[in-house]
């Protein structure tokens, strides 16, 4: 029935629905694939995943689930005491103490299995960090008593977890649309309708007027359609203290992206300096100069800065203050340049407003922004939009 599998996929954050599960079952029933795990993988991905940004999560869920299936058999076929003894033989005193604190061998074994699953995932991902690519994960570990080296396994797994955790710098746009209607509704106020482009819509009142002027002879008048012509430029602060607010930023980003047609976004760290970037992985290689930014996007763009503005005051006020590189000019100068170009600008701050007065840097940024700093709440966004 694949219910467990379906739940696992959802656990990993792939937004699959029951309709899609039924699709998958329907596909299996019509025997498009038969007894072929790879084809099943493709089919399940085809029906359950609707965006390539979720492929990675699906891969992990898939590996996890099917490793779980295999693992039960193998784990049961190994005598428990046999494992136990070999484990204890290899554990140092320190590790034994740690073992106790982890809740005994039972728990450790569970953890061991978990890590096993993790290892399999890595294999599936193509990162052959164990160095025995091609062999089965179980072979790689070796269930021969001498083969289990928990210490080493542990550290390897930790390293893997670290790679996993690297996702803190992942791009916000690859994340899910959180369907926060309230934010969208707030943003909806930011609409400037303008009639631009080709005249395709029948202008009824003008047609009637023109027709009667001609004494009843039909004279058709057209007008261009109405579009939301607002242009938005968003700069996101990423990394460091912003990690706590990733969720809020994702929500905002998802809402913004589906709401505006003319939308440009960039990332920065803590304060604006001479460069911003589009993808976080390649932030060093693919910097986009702020001068280019100023020249590329006209002053009719509305500027939204998202950041907690929590940093050392010198990061704003002094040259060389940046935590990441040597900046020739202080962040303040760059901020003011931006504000000169984009008179319609606001700063959204995910920090709760009550905490603002404890940070000197927030005060400084607020002054630079002439007070146009708003908390990243639905209410704050509504207020901010009014400023634009």
């Amino acid at each position, binding site marked *: 029935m694949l219910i467990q599998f379906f739940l696992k996929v959802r656990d990993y954050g792939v*937004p699959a*629905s029951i*309709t*899609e599960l039924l*699709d998958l079952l*329907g*596909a299996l029933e*019509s025997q*498009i*694939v038969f007894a072929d795990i790879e*084809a099943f993988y*493709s*089919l399940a991905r*085809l*029906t359950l*995943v*609707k*965006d*390539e940004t979720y*492929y990675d999560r699906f891969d992990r869920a898939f590996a996890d689930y099917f490793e779980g299936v295999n693992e039960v058999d193998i784990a049961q076929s190994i005598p428990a005491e046999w494992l136990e003894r070999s484990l204890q033989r290899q554990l140092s005193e320190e590790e034994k103490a740690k073992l106790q604190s982890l809740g005994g061998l039972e728990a450790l074994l569970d953890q061991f299995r978990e890590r096993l699953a993790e290892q399999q995932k890595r294999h599936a991902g193509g990162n052959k960090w164990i160095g025995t690519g091609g062999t089965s994960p179980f072979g790689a570990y070796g269930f021969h008593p001498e083969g289990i080296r928990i210490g080493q396994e542990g550290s390897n797994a930790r390293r893997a977890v670290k790679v996993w955790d690297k996702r803190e710098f992942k791009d916000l746009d690859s994340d899910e*649309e959180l*369907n926060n209607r309230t934010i969208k509704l707030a943003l909806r106020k930011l609409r400037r309708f303008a009639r631009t*482009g*080709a005249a*395709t819509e*029948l202008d009824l009142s003008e047609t009637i007027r023109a027709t009667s002027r001609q004494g009843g*002879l*039909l004279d*058709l008048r057209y007008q261009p*359609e109405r579009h939301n012509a607002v242009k938005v430029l968003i700069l996101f602060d990423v990394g460091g203290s912003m990690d706590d607010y990733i969720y809020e930023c994702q929500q905002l980003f998802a809402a913004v*992206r*589906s709401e505006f047609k003319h939308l440009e976004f960039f990332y920065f760290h803590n304060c604006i300096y001479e460069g911003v970037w589009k993808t976080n992985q*390649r932030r060093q*290689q*693919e910097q986009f100069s702020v001068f280019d930014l100023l020249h590329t996007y006209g002053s009719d763009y509305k500027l939204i800065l998202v950041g907690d503005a929590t940093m050392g005051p010198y990061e704003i006020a002094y040259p060389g203050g940046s935590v990441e590189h040597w900046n020739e000019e202080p962040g303040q100068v760059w901020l003011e340049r931006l504000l000169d170009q984009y008179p319609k600008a606001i700063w959204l701050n995910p920090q709760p407003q009550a905490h603002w007065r404890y940070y000197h840097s927030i005060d400084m940024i607020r002054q630079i922004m002439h007070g146009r700093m708003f908390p990243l709440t639905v209410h704050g966004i509504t207020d901010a939009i009014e400023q634009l």
Partner: protein
Amino acid sequence: MTRFTSTERYIVSSELALAVNAAVTLEKPLLIKGEPGTGKTRLAEELAASLGTNLLRWHIKSTTKAQQGLYEYDAVSRLRDSQLGSDKVHDIGNYIKPGKLWDAFSAVKRPVLLIDEIDKADIEFPNDLLHELDQMEFHVYETGEQVVAQQRPIVIITSNNEKELPDAFLRRCFFHYIRFPDESTLADIVRVHFPTIRKDLLSQALEVFFELRDVPNLKKKPSTSELLDWLKLLLAESISPADLKEKQSNGGLMPMFGALLKNEQDVELVEKLAFMTRRQGR
């Protein structure tokens, strides 16, 4: 039912073939995404050819409305005709122009309907088509007619990811992302298009091509269609693999670079890189 596989003219991965077959069998729309130039549109053409049926293309533009795919009521010409006293005016059906979906629904043989670049349209566009694609029927208000599909057409939808598509729409589709082909698949694809190409030229060209794709900061990465254009030029100018290699190792722009690089900033960037390798080589 015949299964869709690679033809002499078009190479499909097994995953994509499975996706197409599943969509055909289960009568679901298939949403295809992927880098520009990876053959999304070609897929629909080849599928129609292999099934021996008609391909109906509906190219979406930023001004396209969902209604245009169903039918259009030309009120303006009816008004005109009424002034001129034409007899046509009494039958409203004369002013209803069926759209692509209507064509697809009423086709005798199960057609392939290609909805090309759906992301170009307005955000609401996919939502407006939900019912029509799900039930394969719609109502013509002007005549009171109910258009029901004779048989469910095979629907292929392509997207370039310019806009996110609404969830409700995605739920009703199968989804496949065409990955950029690896070197061996790409070599297969090239051989399909240029059966007589020399092996050494091909491998040299592919090397240059993949090296170029790896250059960071390119505004537009060259893709399969660019590679094919470029190879065509190389063959037409009969450039030898040795020439190609020499340029590559000496650090110069590849011959006929215009086919691969579509942006003057990209050309500049590659030139700069080439200059740097030349200097290092010295």
